[in-house]
């Protein structure tokens, strides 16, 4: 660790960076206030918390620019257990979040095309193409991505992620550690939990060697405790959507989930979600809805369409439809009940094994049914995401079951979370209108 790097890290990313980001936050808050004052015919005022969230995530990316030579860097997949790495002091970065950010900034196609020109077919996940394309281009909207010393990937969200991370590991010549989570058709069997536990135990010496220090178990327990608290708070945020009118939409949740994905286990994340809760509670008390004339409350199934979040949000609000809940965002809330700070490794094994994306289509359907009852929903939007087979396979049957068993209509929207080339605004617009008429 060189003194120059250290000074740069604490001075530029720490002191100066914080000031700059605070100023940006103030500007963003001002903008939000202006929008709120001006008013929107269909949408409620934007959440001020988004400005704080930008500050939080931007600060993480800023630190990433200066972290090489100061901290060891680990890349992790969004569903991977990070507590061991966090307790060992790694700087953490998740390519999934980066890919989503690129999607939201409408860079998905540009980067995907670069990956495609290097032989990655259009049929593979657009997150992977976006991220690999960004690597080949040597460009990123976050300035600079720190080179990893270790990559930790877990397939509890899909198998695709293994291939994507293995590819990056090969290009960067960095070891890839896999946390393999057997897919659960039922609740986890003891040998499945034991398997994940064993792998976590195998990760410890690997991570210790790279970090150059021993794992402090008290620190690990503390990290798990904070992580659980963050997840519990995130769950509370999502549950507030039960209020009528709903103070937030699933689209807000897609935006606000950034810290729980990338920075869980940090006090700043817990503090952030407390702020979010305060703001939401103010809205509930004032009867402010995220959609002004909320008439229909629906569930969004699958990943968001990142490049069209605003458009989709407006379009639905125009039909008085509030996307009240998104089951995808529960991925980082629901399984946290398994965290056990007294037995952190076993708790982590259970938590990460029971990820919603690692569960059967029937489980997801039952989860949807519970949400329909709890949130008083009257429709479901099933995003048939070309880039996410594990989520999308089964939706055709889910749609039939929802109608036959609950009388709940659903709409299957064909799109892709990052690749706008397979999205037709006109077609989706017509279908949304028909869906709204069906629910009226």
């Amino acid at each position, binding site marked *: 660790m060189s003194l120059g790097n250290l000074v740069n890290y604490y001075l530029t990313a720490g002191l100066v960076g914080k000031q700059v980001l605070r100023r940006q936050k103030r500007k963003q808050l001002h903008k939000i206030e202006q929008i709120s004052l001006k008013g929107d015919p269909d949408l409620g005022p934007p959440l001020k918390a988004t400005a704080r969230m930008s500050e939080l995530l931007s600060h993480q990316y800023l630190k990433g620019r200066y972290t090489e030579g100061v901290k060891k860097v680990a890349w992790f997949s969004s569903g991977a257990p990070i507590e061991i790495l966090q307790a060992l002091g790694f700087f953490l970065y998740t390519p999934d979040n980066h890919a989503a950010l690129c999607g939201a900034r409408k860079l998905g196609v540009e980067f995907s095309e670069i990956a495609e020109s290097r032989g990655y077919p259009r049929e593979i996940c657009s997150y992977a193409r976006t991220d690999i394309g960004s690597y080949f281009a040597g460009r990123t909207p976050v300035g600079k991505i720190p080179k990893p010393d270790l990559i930790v990937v877990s397939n509890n969200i899909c198998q695709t992620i293994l*291939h994507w991370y*293995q590819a990056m590991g090969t290009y960067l010549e960095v070891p890839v550690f896999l946390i*393999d989570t057997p897919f659960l058709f039922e609740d986890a069997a003891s040998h499945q939990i034991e398997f994940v536990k064993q*792998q976590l135990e195998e990760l410890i010496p690997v991570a210790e060697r790279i970090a150059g220090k021993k794992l402090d178990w008290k620190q690990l327990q503390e990290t798990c405790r904070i992580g659980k608290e963050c997840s519990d708070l995130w769950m509370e945020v999502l549950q507030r959507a039960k209020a009528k009118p709903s103070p937030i939409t699933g689209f807000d949740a897609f935006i606000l989930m950034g810290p729980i994905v990338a920075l869980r286990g940090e006090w700043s994340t817990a503090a952030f979600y407390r702020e979010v809760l305060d703001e939401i509670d103010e809205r509930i008390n004032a009867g402010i809805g995220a959609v002004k004339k909320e008439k229909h409350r629906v569930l969004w199934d699958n990943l968001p369409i990142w490049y069209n979040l605003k458009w989709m949000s407006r379009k639905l609000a125009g039909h008085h439809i509030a996307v009240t809940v998104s089951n995808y965002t529960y991925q980082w809330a629901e399984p946290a009940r398994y965290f056990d700070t007294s037995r952190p490794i076993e708790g982590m094994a259970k938590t990460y094994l029971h990820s919603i994306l690692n569960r059967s289509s*029937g489980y997801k*359907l039952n989860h949807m049914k519970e949400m329909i009852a709890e949130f008083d929903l009257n429709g479901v939007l099933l995003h048939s995401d070309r880039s996410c087979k594990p989520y999308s396979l*089964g939706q*055709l*049957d889910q749609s039939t*079951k929802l109608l036959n068993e609950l009388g709940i209509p659903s709409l299957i929207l064909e799109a892709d979370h990052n690749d706008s080339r397979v999205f037709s605004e006109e077609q989706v617009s017509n279908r949304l209108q028909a869906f709204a008429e069906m629910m009226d």
Partner: protein
Amino acid sequence: MKIPNRKETIEAVRAKGYQIGAVMPFHYPRALLRAFKIHPMEVWGPPHIDPMEGMQHFPEYTCQIVHKATRFFATAAARDIDCILIPHTCDSLQGMASVLKDYLTMKQPIFTLYHPRGRRKSDLDYLENELRALGEKLREFTNISPGNDEIMAEIRLEEKANKLFADTLQHRQIYTVSDRDFYTTLRAGEYLPADQFIELVGSLPKGRADLHGPGLMLSGVVPEPMSIFDHINRFGAHVIIDDLACCSRRIYEANDESDPYRHLARSLMSMPPDTTISTPYNRRFEYLGSQMLRTGAKGVVVFNPKFCEPELFYISMFEERMKEQGYSFLFVENELTTELHQQIQTRINSFVEVMT
């Protein structure tokens, strides 16, 4: 020697008291099923099935193996099946297993098997336990409780068949049959009992094979339609080695574990580097490079059903590495049709012409 077809095989094994287990691709413990008196018959499509029924359950961006197999399970022909085993090979087969278990009213029980992606001690321990769990489910289903010796006897027989399978695949040049006949014979192992398979492969005529033009490696999942071999031969090349999921990626090594479950786990984990597990890219390319060198192959044809994500991820680096080593490379996707599309024929023709 005439190759018995699937129907004849079903009748013959039923007469011996076996139930029929349909097995989806592609790593699974044959010996374990046989020990429970379940005869495995693999389902790789099938190509002649209209995938429309499958389209009711899966979006079009799902591979045709899933579409067609789902449709097949709904047909009258599937009445002969007593149970279904779906190994967790990829996201698509995972989805298929889920849809079959959760939504379709299947008369047959659906068993699943999760093959670990790593190659560590924890993976071996897990697979052993996973196989035990499967064994327990098979015991409940069949009411049969084979002892360790019985399972080991099946393992030995399957290992004998697998060794012959491996030796034959690796010495293509000494068999005087066409590529299509060669692979049709070897693929009969997808449904024949091991003893019959051994006899069949043993009858392949040996001598100086009449192999024309450059030798190719055929990579991919499954060579359907099988007429791809005819076209490769017709255009003046031959397949000297393969890297097919249904063939060479299922060469398992024998081991000396005395516990049958441990033995099976170790064996299943010994397969060559594969796209469906977390094989580091470099290890797979080194292995394939060594196979190219050993056989003197001049080029690679990757032939895959559409939307096979595990395969697609490897394509870019595979092509790059092979070309760096001076090999020609062709990637084609097919929709698991009964005949090879004219466009694909043309591409193969041009590829072979360029090579020669």
